[in-house]
């Protein structure tokens, strides 16, 4: 028990907790200024996220893709690369999964894993292209990944519209049931439970564990981190810096691609001809930053991010707070978490005070 108290009073965990609290407090002020009741609003938010099993399940569904894209961005960060392309890698992962899911007929124990694998591979290749261009041609990965995002969007729209389209619809055909990783049918039949849960959440947690193993337990990870901290020293030590850049972007892409694949196989069962990005890749940047690029951090940040975005409509529904104000509230929570420097400063003021009193 003492350990638990210590864990939460340790500065590393105190800061994010304080940051969330400060963000909520600031959000409350904004709501009061707008004439809304923050207590009811926050209660509605909480109720929307944890209030019943259905919504709780849907929150988990919302969190899952964020873990994948967060890991993707964090992995590249660890190697000193800024992967803005998780969005495109996510879309490519979806495309890979939907191609396998719709075009092949296989037993389920091969079909679903194969669709996930191909999705991961598509995402990985998409990231790897940016890595290759950086390593061999010196093109900055921020530029290439942004461009690749758009290419992936229109490329997948083209493939779906011309080869996979369900007639008269704005999306692909349904994937075969053997490729589905959704738990919905089973849960729905057994318990009448309708949240769109799927195996992808488990895969996300495994991915976070693999993230840890690769970076901290393998030779490859040692090299990736070394290159991230100091490419000159890595070169001196005999590591192939360029190959590591490609590998890092490939592995980062695999994480995002996995996210795209499980979103298709677990939630939609088809891919839409999308006008814009789903936004998980960009949210992944924030998640990685808030999570300090560690696997546990990414999971926690995804939970925060996912809960806030999923719970936001609850504030509108429950307390009548307009969506614009809700966005201010959510943004301020994230702002305080991201700008942990401010929180550290406020905490230091507390400490100084304590010292003076003593």
């Amino acid at each position: 028990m003492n350990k638990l108290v210590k864990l939460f009073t340790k500065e590393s965990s105190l800061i994010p907790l304080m940051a969330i609290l400060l963000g909520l407090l600031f959000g409350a002020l904004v709501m009061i200024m707008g004439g809304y009741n923050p207590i009811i609003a926050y209660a509605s938010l909480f109720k929307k996220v944890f209030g019943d099993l259905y919504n709780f399940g849907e929150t988990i569904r919302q969190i899952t893709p964020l873990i994948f894209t967060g890991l993707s961005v964090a992995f590249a960060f660890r190697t000193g690369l800024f992967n803005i392309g998780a969005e495109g890698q996510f879309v490519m992962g979806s495309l890979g999964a939907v191609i396998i899911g719709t075009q092949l007929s296989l037993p389920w124990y091969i079909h679903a894993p194969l669709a996930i694998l191909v999705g991961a591979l598509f995402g990985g290749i998409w990231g790897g292209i940016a890595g290759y261009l950086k390593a061999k041609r010196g093109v900055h990965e921020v530029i290439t990944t942004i461009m690749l995002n758009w290419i992936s969007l229109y490329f997948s729209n083209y493939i779906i519209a011309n080869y996979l389209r369900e007639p008269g619809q704005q999306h692909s055909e349904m994937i075969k049931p053997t490729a589905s990783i959704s738990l919905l049918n089973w849960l729905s039949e057994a318990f009448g439970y309708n949240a769109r849960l799927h195996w992808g959440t488990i895969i996300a947690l495994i991915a976070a564990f693999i993230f840890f193993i690769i970076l901290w337990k393998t030779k490859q990870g040692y090299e990736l981190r070394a290159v991230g901290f100091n490419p000159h020293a890595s070169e001196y030590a005999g590591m192939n810096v360029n190959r590591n850049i490609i590998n890092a972007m490939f592995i980062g892409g695999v994480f995002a691609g996995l996210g795209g694949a499980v979103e298709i196989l677990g939630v939609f069962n088809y891919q839409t001809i999308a006008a814009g990005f789903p936004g998980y890749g960009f949210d992944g940047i924030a998640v990685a930053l808030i999570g300090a690029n560690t696997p546990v951090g990414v999971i926690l940040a995804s939970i925060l991010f996912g809960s806030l975005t999923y719970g936001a409509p609850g504030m509108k529904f429950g307390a009548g707070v307009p969506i614009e104000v809700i966005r201010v509230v959510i943004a301020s929570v994230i702002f305080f978490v991201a700008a942990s420097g401010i929180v550290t400063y406020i905490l230091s003021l507390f400490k100084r005070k304590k010292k003076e009193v003593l």
Partner: protein
Amino acid sequence: MMNDINYVVEMRNITKRFPGIIANDHISFKVRKGEIHALLGENGAGKSTLMNVLFGLYQPEEGQILINEKEVKITDPNVANDLGIGMVHQHFMLVENFTVTENIILGSEPKKGLKINYQEARKTVTALSEKYGLKVNPDAKIEDISVGMQQRVEILKTLYRGADILIFDEPTAVLTPQEILELADIMNNLVNEEKSIILITHKLKEIMEIANSVTIIRRGRVIDSLLVQDTNPDELASKMVGREVTFGVEKKEASPGNNILEVANIFVKDYRGVQLLNGISLEVKEGEILGIAGVDGNGQSELIDVITGLRNADGGKVLLKGNDITNHTPRYITEAGVSHIPEDRHKRGLILDFTVGENMVMETYFYPDYQTNHLLDYQKINQHAEKLIEEFDVRTPSVNTLARALSGGNQQKAIIAREVDKDPDLLIAAQPTRGLDVGAIEFIHRRLVEQRDKGKAVLLISLEVDEILSLSDRIAVIYEGQIVGIVNPKETTEQELGLMMAGAAKQEGAIHHE
């Protein structure tokens, strides 16, 4: 001068604490008008802290500062400037693509209406430069002038702001022997014009040659304050380190064997097509230290990069024990038996954000010795690191400390431990003691000689002529990407080496020495 009790700076009982240490413990320190006063101490002794207090960057917890015998409070560097205190930093603070004049007036530009009066500024700068013999071209761009010249621009900057008391922070660390001599002349010109100089250094030789008085600091306290004429290098060294220090390296006669490294006719161009290595050839035998002497930028770095595989040669061959290793990968070359202590330990030698343990296996992390079930085994890695730490006396709280947290000397020891432990056939040591204090230098020199005595080939590159002279069994002088002569250290002088380094071939045809 003895009777002159006109103190321009007097610091009384200065105490400055940082969390965990007392950087300055009741330090008292006086500088007479018109003298060069050296502040001597090892790295971390508290010299820089004291000068930062004087320059207004730190506020002391206790003590007083008197400037020209009036008590003052120096709350920030602007106050210091107003009091006539100027600092010539070790790392220059210059805008690379501005001219000399623009850099000097930056922050206190002479105005003509709303416009900057360049004519006026240029005139002032030229006048100052002539008065003190600085010979600076006011219109040259910083990026086009040598390091020595840049330092003079820093000096001019302080003079332009009306400084009477100049603090020089390790000014010779970046200079060639010739430039050091010229700097000494400049300092003399300055004191002749009634300026006072505080010289922060850990080089005894410079103090003996340049300074009038010296204050020695050890672990935050003043050990002694002396007139240079009343002391000698041995006394200063033992006061600085706190024990007897041996100068010059004691070593047996070398017994060189077969060639380990042969460099034959190597050419390297940079991307603009400028020849950096111009057909350089040399060899290093087992059981000898070959020192390469030369002014910075004559191809030393490129030579090492080619030998270690960090850079491709455009022509020529590198042989290790007769095997061709030209343009192979760094990994191939280290595995073939080459160890390399890089010249820039922060850029190449260490990954500062890795732990000491991780740094100790930078080139060997993939060995089966450090794996269990194909995963890295940190227990094994750390055991290995602990062994090296003990063997090489690396002072670190633990193997899990980040390399960043270690002092420069201990970082260098860690690198040497790692490189020597690989039991190489060829050990390349590039500027192995740069920026280190006497104690660490002594340790590293002993280790290099020890490797030689074990029959290894050692290739030493250093900009410090003293170091080259005292360690090497043979000296190769590099100039503009070529070896211009090979001399026996016992038969040469610093002057002769200096001339060769400046491009003059050895008189008695040393090129045919081999």
